[in-house]
């Protein structure tokens, strides 16, 4: 198992300000905001919302990398979103599911039990998948996906618990966060670049 924060620090080192991210409501949003604040980041999407939101974002920005930072409990609410992600097959989307095996705020309440999230994704039709257990694997597999051009899905086995991090609570929740996201999106050089004019 790895620490989520170590993975996120590595990921942040590969980011540029034109990439876009979406995170689930878990330790993901706190720790991601602590290490990366540039560009357009939509934080703390509730259960089942993160991966499909990121798929939609990838359709709006087809030439930019979109990264979904999801979590096991969130994905499990609607695993059928994997079927849709595979069917849409956005080559600019990297989906990372941080899997600590439990629902974050409810102690040892198991999420996936004996289910294998990577195999579920494979069964849904996603071709590039991996389950990651070390930081070295994360660096090798995820960096390659960030540089690549195909839909990639990773399950990262992380230790339960939260790190103490310095994050901006106001800008990671609700309308204030959304407005900051929209401001960043509208400043993006690709914003509505492919818009079809009225016929």
């Amino acid at each position, binding site marked *: 198992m790895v620490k989520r924060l170590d993975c996120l620090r590595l990921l942040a080192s590969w980011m540029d300000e034109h990439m*876009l991210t*979406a995170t689930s409501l878990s330790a993901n949003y706190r720790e991601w905001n602590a290490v990366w604040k540039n560009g357009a980041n*939509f934080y703390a*999407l*509730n*259960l*089942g*919302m993160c*991966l*499909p*939101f*990121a*798929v*939609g*974002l*990838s*359709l*709006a*920005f087809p030439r930019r990398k979109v990264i979904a930072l999801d979590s096991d409990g969130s994905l499990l609410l*609607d695993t*059928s*979103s994997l*079927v*849709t992600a595979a*069917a*849409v097959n956005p080559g600019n989307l990297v989906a990372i599911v941080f899997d600590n095996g439990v629902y974050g705020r409810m102690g040892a309440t198991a999420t996936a039990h004996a289910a294998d999230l990577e195999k579920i994704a494979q069964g849904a039709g996603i071709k590039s998948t991996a389950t990651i257990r070390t930081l070295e694997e994360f660096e090798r597999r995820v960096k390659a996906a960030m540089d690549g051009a195909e839909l990639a899905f990773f399950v990262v086995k992380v230790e339960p618990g939260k790190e103490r991090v310095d994050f901006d609570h106001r800008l990671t929740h*609700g*309308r204030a966060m*959304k407005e900051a*996201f*929209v401001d960043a*999106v*509208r400043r993006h050089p690709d*914003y*509505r670049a492919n*818009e*079809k*004019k*009225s*016929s």
Partner: protein
Amino acid sequence: MDQQTIQMIAEALKEEGIDLVVTMPEEPTQPLMEYLRNDPYFTTITVSAEGHGLAMCAGASLGGRKCVFVTGIAGLLVGSWALAQTGLLYGIPTLILASYRGDIGDRSGISGPQLFMFQQVAKPLLDALRVPYVVTDQKSALKRKIRDSFFACEQYETPIVMLLTGEVLW
């Protein structure tokens, strides 16, 4: 839904620059989706559950991609979690075309108790979610209402549902 209505919807969507169409297959709107799928102007995506279809539309919409979600009353019920999040919580504009199943005039073949259930829950559900809706039952008003609804959802920053019924749907 007849050919004339389908073409009116397609024209109105094009006039607004809406080129992304997301749906969970549903009988009354199936001919519309078939038509849009065969028009290269549109990108059409079929999802396997309404909740993540609405979440996908939310991401696309906030990213600046103009989109529409096509569903029915059952889809609104299933997608209510996503609607509460994208609407009440974040205020994300999303145009939704929904067949108004169970409305008086629905002779599509679903059973009476199901019809009545849809009729009973449709408007209270949207009211509870604070999602504005407009009942659209006249072809003559269809294009105008699509344009107005899309404009309003972007201005209000909320999902808006067009409940399609009457001569528009049956």
